[in-house]
């Protein structure tokens, strides 16, 4: 089935071997092949992330179907304005990430850096807003699970700040913290990835021929945005 004796002189691989650019790893034949592989890999990774978050959405959906009033009562304690503001921040950062890729494709290095910086900055804003939301909840004792009603996780303090909430509201806040916490973790990881891309961009690693890392980093960032696009309405806007 093969020709191990090497009769095929213009084997697609050997014919260009001498001009293999430095950014193409030894096991790839062409830059396009490497780029496609990286992208395919990222998409598969995105699928795994979707299924992971999806598990939480499934738990959310089933619990909501079972006890809708708990979710409706709970969501009144979330701050719609902050949530919407964060949504706009993340959408904007997604735009800037896409523009960073575009600049990189065109070989505009400084512009790429600028867009990346803006993206990372938006991520910071997002986290700051989240910080205010979280600290507000924690102060009020809107805590997950069994800590619910106990301010600052202090189990010895008297519970019961929210008698108006149904008794299972602790579960809503459990899910809220788990989902937004996991998402927040992804924001932090995304910042690290984009920071690394930024560093490499400033070092001059990328060119219109090779911008794989920018593209991959941006794809990751869009995923973070995608998850939030669902989190926001499901947590803040129900009922």
């Amino acid at each position, binding site marked *: 089935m093969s020709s191990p004796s090497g009769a095929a002189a213009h084997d697609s691989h050997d014919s260009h071997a001498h001009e293999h650019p430095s950014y193409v790893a030894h096991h790839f034949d062409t830059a396009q092949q490497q780029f496609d592989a990286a992208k395919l890999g990222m*998409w598969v990774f995105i699928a795994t992330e979707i299924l992971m978050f999806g598990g939480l959405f499934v738990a959310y959906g089933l619990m909501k179907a079972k006890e809708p009033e708990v979710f409706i009562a709970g969501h009144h304690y979330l701050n719609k304005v902050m949530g919407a503001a964060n949504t706009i921040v993340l959408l904007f950062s997604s735009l800037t990430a896409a*523009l960073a890729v575009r600049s990189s494709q065109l070989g505009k290095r400084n512009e790429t850096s600028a867009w990346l910086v803006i993206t990372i900055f938006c991520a910071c804003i997002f986290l700051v807003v989240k910080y205010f939301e979280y600290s507000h909840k924690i102060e009020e004792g809107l805590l997950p699970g069994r800590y619910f009603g106990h301010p600052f996780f202090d189990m010895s303090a008297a519970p019961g700040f929210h008698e108006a909430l149904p008794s299972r509201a602790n579960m809503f806040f459990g899910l809220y913290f788990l989902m937004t916490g996991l998402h927040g973790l992804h924001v932090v990881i995304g910042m690290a990835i984009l920071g690394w891309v930024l560093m490499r961009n400033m070092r001059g690693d990328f060119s219109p021929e090779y911008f794989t890392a920018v593209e991959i980093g941006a794809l990751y960032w869009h995923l973070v945005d995608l998850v939030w696009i*669902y989190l926001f309405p499901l947590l803040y806007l129900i*009922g």
Partner: protein
Amino acid sequence: MNAHAEHPDDGKVRPHIAPALFYWGIFGALIFLTVTTVAVSYVDFGAANTVIAVLVATVKAVLVATFFMHLAHDSLFNSIILCMAFVFLGVFVGLTYEDTSTRNQLDDANGAMIYVRTGEIAPAAFPHKMIVAPHAAEHKAAEGGHH
């Protein structure tokens, strides 16, 4: 080997590059949808609120995936992967819901009716009325028992 084989390899990749304004346009659409969905949430449509929210979110997600994430000009297979992820999630939630929504319905005489009959909550349960399958009561009321 692949679709790109027609290019003689020159060490380059050939992406589709959209104009910057186009991306801004998508962003505008996304913001518009966000504002809409927040506005709609102030109107009470009952259970439909969630459905509307999810639908709008899906439109937004499709916009992001198709244009920001370049699926529009990418290998079709990448789109298939994304769809597969959602399909399997759908299977997961759908079949599980099939369980949680129909427990103890084959036979009214089954355990879940205890609460309805006697108000007794099962041992080791959270003292909350919703624990005992609420639909069993409605179901009984609506159909007067069935087989």
